[in-house]
């Protein structure tokens, strides 16, 4: 019943639609303006130059690695935040979400003082022969730092809206916590986890400030696509625009293909039975 009403009711006031159109234009217009500045005859040579391909390859590799780290650390964090009950939970959530609102350059400085050569952990790592600064590892750390909250927010939202009824039932039937997690909880929130992972990947792909501050900029090692764009802009505006477009296309493809956004209430097989899992706070 509810679902029918939701999908057939289209009584959006015209003025709301008008403002929405302005909002959409605000995002689309700059992108269209950039499109108008692309040097099309040179576009393919520009984006297939050696430096561009090196930067793109590095960006895709590091963003994939960061996404893996985000899932590895983000899933437990989201579970603890959604299901756990302990003092200081709100504080923990605030800190985990902090990179969402921090300027990336601040994140870079903080990482520097933690993992840098003179940093809190960096000194010990240096003694152990592990060097992080100026390596690809530094890029991955910077990206994970800024992208982790996206996964945590998405997944925590999914966990909350899924509720814990099925888990409680599974537990009363004798399932151990790990079994409940593996067989009930995770399958239930898989769409939320997937969209969180995609968002993290996209955020990692766009990371700039923390990388610049913490990792440096060397072709093939630390110079990701955003850093390459920033540098090319100094001398070759055409190359910068072409690479920007490339990054936009990659981001649109990644997000468009996998991120479906909040599922409409009651849609989809399993979701229909458990309410609205996979609901992601936008």
């Amino acid at each position, binding site marked *: 019943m509810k679902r029918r009403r939701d999908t057939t009711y289209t009584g959006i006031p015209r003025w709301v639609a008008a403002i929405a159109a302005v909002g959409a234009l605000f995002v689309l217009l700059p992108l269209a303006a950039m499109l108008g500045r692309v040097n099309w005859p040179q576009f393919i040579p520009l984006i297939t130059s050696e430096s561009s391909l090196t930067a793109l390859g590095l960006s895709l590799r590091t963003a994939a690695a960061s996404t893996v780290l985000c899932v590895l650390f983000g899933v437990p964090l989201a579970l603890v935040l959604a299901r756990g009950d302990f003092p200081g939970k709100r504080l923990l959530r605030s800190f985990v979400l902090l990179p969402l609102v921090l300027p990336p350059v601040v994140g870079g400085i903080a990482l520097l003082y933690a993992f840098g050569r003179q940093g809190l952990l960096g000194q010990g790592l240096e003694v152990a022969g592990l060097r992080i600064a100026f390596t690809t590892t530094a890029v991955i750390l910077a990206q994970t730092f800024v992208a982790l909250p996206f996964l945590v927010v998405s997944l925590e939202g999914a966990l909350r809206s899924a509720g814990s009824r099925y888990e409680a039932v599974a537990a009363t039937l004798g399932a151990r916590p790990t079994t409940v997690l593996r067989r009930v909880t995770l399958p239930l929130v898989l769409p939320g986890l997937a969209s969180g992972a995609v968002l993290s990947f996209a955020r990692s792909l766009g990371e700039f400030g923390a990388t*610049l501050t913490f990792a440096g*900029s060397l072709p093939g090692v630390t110079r990701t696509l955003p850093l390459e764009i920033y*540098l090319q802009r*100094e001398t070759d505006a055409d190359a910068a625009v072409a690479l920007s477009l490339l990054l936009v296309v990659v981001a649109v493809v990644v997000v468009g293909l996998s991120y479906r956004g909040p599922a409409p209430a009651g849609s989809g097989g399993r979701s229909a039975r458990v309410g609205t899992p996979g609901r992601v706070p936008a």
Partner: protein
Amino acid sequence: MRPGIRAAAALAAAGLMGCAAAAGLTGCTAPARDAGKTLTVFAAASLQAPFTALAEEFEAAHPGTTVTLSFAGSSDLATQISQGAPADVFASADTKNMAKVGEAGLVEGSPRDFATNVLTIAVPPENPASIATFADLAKPGVRTVICAEQVPCGAATKTLEKETGTTLMPVSEESSVTDVLGKVVSGEADAGLVYVTDAKAAGSKVQAIPFPESARAVNTYPITAVRNGKNKELAADFIEAVTGPDGQRIFRGAGFGTP
């Protein structure tokens, strides 16, 4: 944005004419001429300290005038000016970016060179890699950070590499000289190539190691009034101050050379 700027420019122009018209009747004296006026100066990031000092002196000498300083990389500033940013004066860290503004037809008269700058080696105070010469930077195991070739300090670095037949293997090629300095100050890098003025401004946080080869790559700083600027007379006065003895004293104090 654009129409807004144009409207502001028109208003300012109207104000000027009002003053000129009034001058015939009431006498618009020099101090009154400058009252409430704002001079917008776009200057290369490396000029921050001396230009800030100079602007204070200029404001004191021209009561009622406010000097607004905008510091950024020269190429960023050149792009902004070409796109119609409301600058009265442009001071670039190299001749290339001045030429870019010139190509856009926005240079008033011809630019004047007012300072020079050379590179120096900056190392952390304790000099962990025991750097003493330019060639030391190319030694294996030394973590050297330089500017990327696309920015002026990187172009100068490239020139030095060619001139001396040295090939540096940097751990990072930064997009601005401040980023190079930052990596040295934080101790991440063993050495960095920065301008003498940057090393001087960093004080005791870095140790500067001058090297004779640096004289083979000298950066020249030109300054110009911007054609579409609102305050032509003030802009001319400011450029006089920069190129005059007071300005030169400040620049020498900051480590700049004389062109």
